[in-house]
């Protein structure tokens, strides 16, 4: 991995997708320390990560289950 100012976007996207191994993530963070003008872009790309709303779900799942006694 050789992150630089020409290819950083690809690595920011891979970071957001959690497709980098730990050592590669460290390289991205080190790159950001030396390129502070790109921090905002890194943050905005990571802001695109959606979080599931765990309050949304099926209240009753019994209609999906199999009860062999009833077959």
């Amino acid at each position: 991995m050789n992150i630089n100012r020409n290819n950083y976007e690809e690595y920011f996207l891979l970071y957001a997708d959690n497709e980098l191994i730990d050592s590669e993530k460290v390289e991205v963070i080190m790159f950001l320390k030396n390129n502070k003008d790109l921090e905002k872009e890194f943050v905005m790309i990571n802001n695109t990560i959606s979080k599931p709303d765990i309050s949304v779900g099926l209240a009753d799942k019994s209609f999906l289950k199999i009860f062999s006694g009833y077959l």
Partner: protein
Amino acid sequence: MTEKEFNDCVTLYADNVYRFILKNLKHEEDARDVVQASFEKLWINREKVDNDRSKSYLFTVAYHQMIDLIRKNKRVKLEEDFSSSLQTTREPQSEIKKLLNEALYRLSETQRSLVLLKDYEGYSYDEIAEITSLSISQVKVYLHRARIQLKNYLVKPENVI
């Protein structure tokens, strides 16, 4: 897969599949139908599906059922206030979350599905490729394009994707 393992799958994964489908379809009844059809298919094929693969099998079936449904009904509309209509008791979303939700519905169905499979379920590119029948490189390219579109919307929401 035993009856108990199947019922455990319902307990463990039904909400995940439902959330994924509901976020795409924006229609609770249709989402329930897709979830039900997916579990029915898992039960029918229980002898062929390893228990370890049951979650990705469910997402694979649900994804394709959902795409079929979208193509048949064309029910998906750009309803920016969708989530607020579903959960009226929830606290107001942060501005970024609200914008991100708007931006998600400006993506194509495929792009949105890739983002949700990645972000909601944490699937790898390889796993998403298997679920969606896309190539790994397509998944990566489509997902990256989607993130760039989302980022551009977050930076400047008046820009239409």
